[in-house]
């Protein structure tokens, strides 16, 4: 079926099997490889993107859910007002080792902080906990998330 949606601000029309995962449509049809395959079952979060502002694990949702909606992939992060700050915070904290899990984490945080710019710590941890990291970069990632919250707070005061 034909699926029309917006990807990082641009209109996209795809011929895709609507039941197959959104991840493959993004990576192979749209050539946005920032969302990564990790498990295919929504456990690790490496594939996370935003659909109408909501974090979705794109390996585990059908491409059809994008129809008529606005999708933000990691490639759209730096143009997203909150995403750009999240990116800046991760770079400042050097919050990566191999980096495979990081794009998905930044997507989830961008989705969270767009709606709740100053979330309770328990909420923040709950969102981070939808992601897995194997290199053991967790402490830096959590610091980067808190730095992003601080940057958002500074921006709001300006």
């Amino acid at each position, binding site marked *: 079926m034909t699926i029309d949606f917006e990807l990082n601000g641009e209109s996209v029309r795809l011929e*895709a*099997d609507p039941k*197959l*995962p959104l991840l*493959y*449509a993004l*990576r*192979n049809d749209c*050539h*946005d*490889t*920032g969302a*990564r*395959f*990790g*498990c*295919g*079952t929504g*456990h*690790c979060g*490496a594939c996370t993107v935003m659909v109408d502002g909501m974090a979705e694990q794109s390996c585990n949702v059908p491409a059809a859910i994008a129809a008529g909606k606005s999708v933000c992939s*990691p*490639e759209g*992060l*730096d143009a997203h007002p909150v995403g750009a700050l999240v*990116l800046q915070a*991760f*770079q400042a904290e*050097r*919050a*990566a*080792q*191999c*980096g*495979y*899990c*990081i*794009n998905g984490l930044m997507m989830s945080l961008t989705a969270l902080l767009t709606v709740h710019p100053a979330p309770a710590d328990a909420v923040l*941890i*709950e969102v*981070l*906990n939808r*992601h*897995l*990291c*194997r*290199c*053991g*970069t*967790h*402490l*830096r*990632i*959590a610091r980067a998330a808190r730095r992003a919250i601080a940057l958002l707070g500074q921006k709001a005061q300006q």
Partner: protein
Amino acid sequence: MIAQGIPANIQPFPRLGDWIEFVESGLFQLRTGKVEIGQGIANALTRIACDALGIDPDQALMVAGDTSLCPDEGYTSGSQSIEMGGAALRHAGQVAQQRFAALAAKHFAVDPSHLSIARGVFHCDLDGRSISYHALAQGVDYPNWRIDCVEPNHSPLAKTRLGPAETGPTGEDSSALVVVGTAAGGAGVLAADLGPSRVIAQFIHDMKIDGMQHARVLRGLHPHAKALQVDRGAIESLPGVQTFVWLGDFLALVGSNEALIAQAQVLAQAYVVWSAPLMIPGADTEAWLLSLPAQTQWVAGLGPSDATIAAARGAAQRLVGRYSRPYIAHGAIGPSCALAAPTEAGGLTIWTHSQGVFQLRDEISRALQRTPASLRVIHQVGSGCYGHNGADDVAFDAALLAHTLNVPVRVQWSRQQELAQSPMGAASLIEIDAGLDASGRICDWRQSVWSQSHNNRPGSGGGIHLLGARAFDPSLPEPVAKDVPLPTGGGLRNAIPYYELPALTVEHHFLTEAPVRTSALRSLGGHANGLAIESFMDELAHLAGQDPLAFRLAHLRDARARAVLESVAARCGWSALREQYAVGEGQGIGIGFARYKNRAGFAAVAIEVQVAHQVSVPRVWVAADVGLVIDRDGVLNQIEGGVIQALSWCLKEAVGWDADGVQTADWETYPILGFDELPTLDIVLLEPEEALSLGAGEIAAGPVAGALANALTHALGVRPRHLPFTVQRLRELIENPA
């Protein structure tokens, strides 16, 4: 004649052109056999070579791990890359600068002392004339210059003073570049990964080549699985399956639509019956390992001598302890992936995230009966790698398919395959039997280690190690089980205690049979031996009626070892916390120490635990001595990662089996540490003067295991000895302390 002080890796690759080539657009191609596996080595090596040459990182094109272009520097493993690979590139760069400076001086008809260099351009300080490497290289056969008999013995040229606007690509003043640079570690990967124009093709998973087909391999849940029944018709009719490859027990689905092929991989499992596992380990690691045939040898103390027997007889008190860890999965977040494509000349190009491209090429050539020269293996960055994971196996899968079908193929392993089929960290059992004399000092110590191999990499010993190769051709020779030899050791890594022990014997029961392929996982046997030795030191201290820290210090002479222990004790407030937490009341503090490989970095770790309805680790302290710290943030990042990963192994991880094979093949059945289980982490780096730089990524695993066991013992009043320390296992221990 080979000059003294020439790096070992230069000797087999003695020409400047093996390492450095001046290429178009004024750029410098740097070649290394050491590859990026998430540890930040690409950045660090680039900075080393640039500094030696007198160029900036934006002028460098680093080519790493390409069998057609790069020197074979062996595996990228064991924290050797800066030491060996860095030394070679630094040497090549220094020799190049020295020889080209001589050419420049001749060109200007001045003494080389009047030259300075910036961005690959030599400047004459007398009159401002300048000339580049590239211009000087015209008509000069520099690639064939021998660099194995030249020791750079002059001071490098001064960096030309540039205006304030001339800074390096990272915004630092390029004249202030230090030897290895700052912020290597993951920062290089991060910056590249996050840049909007660099997101594509950052990982091997993201590579695309023209005409590429997607493939998925069908496998059982253990490495010896044979396809007993295959419903070819049903598999071939699955949507998206354009070709079904069936070669012996090697089954693969190939098609142009990856989403359909991935779906078909799941559906096709209903149409294959796999053979049952040859061996199924029980949940009791201790009983399982003791049931296996062993090759026993004495590795220290040469067996019980008259002296050790006499020492043992003289003991006032004796103690025996057994400790174990189960099989542990690598668990890379990105499952292994590879691409292979036929070349016009009839060869194959293979892209891989293997740690050893040359060894992989040679083993693929033997398995496919092709010449090594017909294969070009090129490294591409994969997901974080902590040892020998599925990278080599998936590269063979892709090579076999491209070889058979004569089309470019990309193979992506599933999560299930990554967790069930990758080589695993070996299970280990350690028994220690020791005596205390009347004064409470250790008078004899006998340590026995039961473990399988910690090295089944391609090229290790005989045979073919690639998973798909022996499925496709069972006549290929089986790998011969052998372990990493001492002094670094596999199962024996850190099995010889670093303490001062008067009558020491160590024996190795090497287990030659295994239910899975066991191979290198971060710190190898250092993890289980750290658990055993550091647990047992606490048990002996208790028996002697001494404080665990004081007991360790009483048996340590090395000042650097004592310093990390004293430092971590001061940071955590050891004595106060020991007193504050009553034994068995749910809170505890424990300590652990090791010198990695008994010859590398020192680490002492203190861990605080709270046990209620779950086990939590509120605080961890580390004091480390990795010699001269060149890249502080990189060292901290590696230690943090080592601590968190080891906590995950110790608290949660164990590969489990059922009748079909490995049962822990997803993140629900093989959980790892989450963001809701993090401690605060306090790391102090001790930097003794004039100490050589040592690797940091693997030093913490053993001390973490020991400190955690000791803290839990403090909190529970009973000692856990067998990993993992899950709530369920601790509950069983409390209910049945025997």
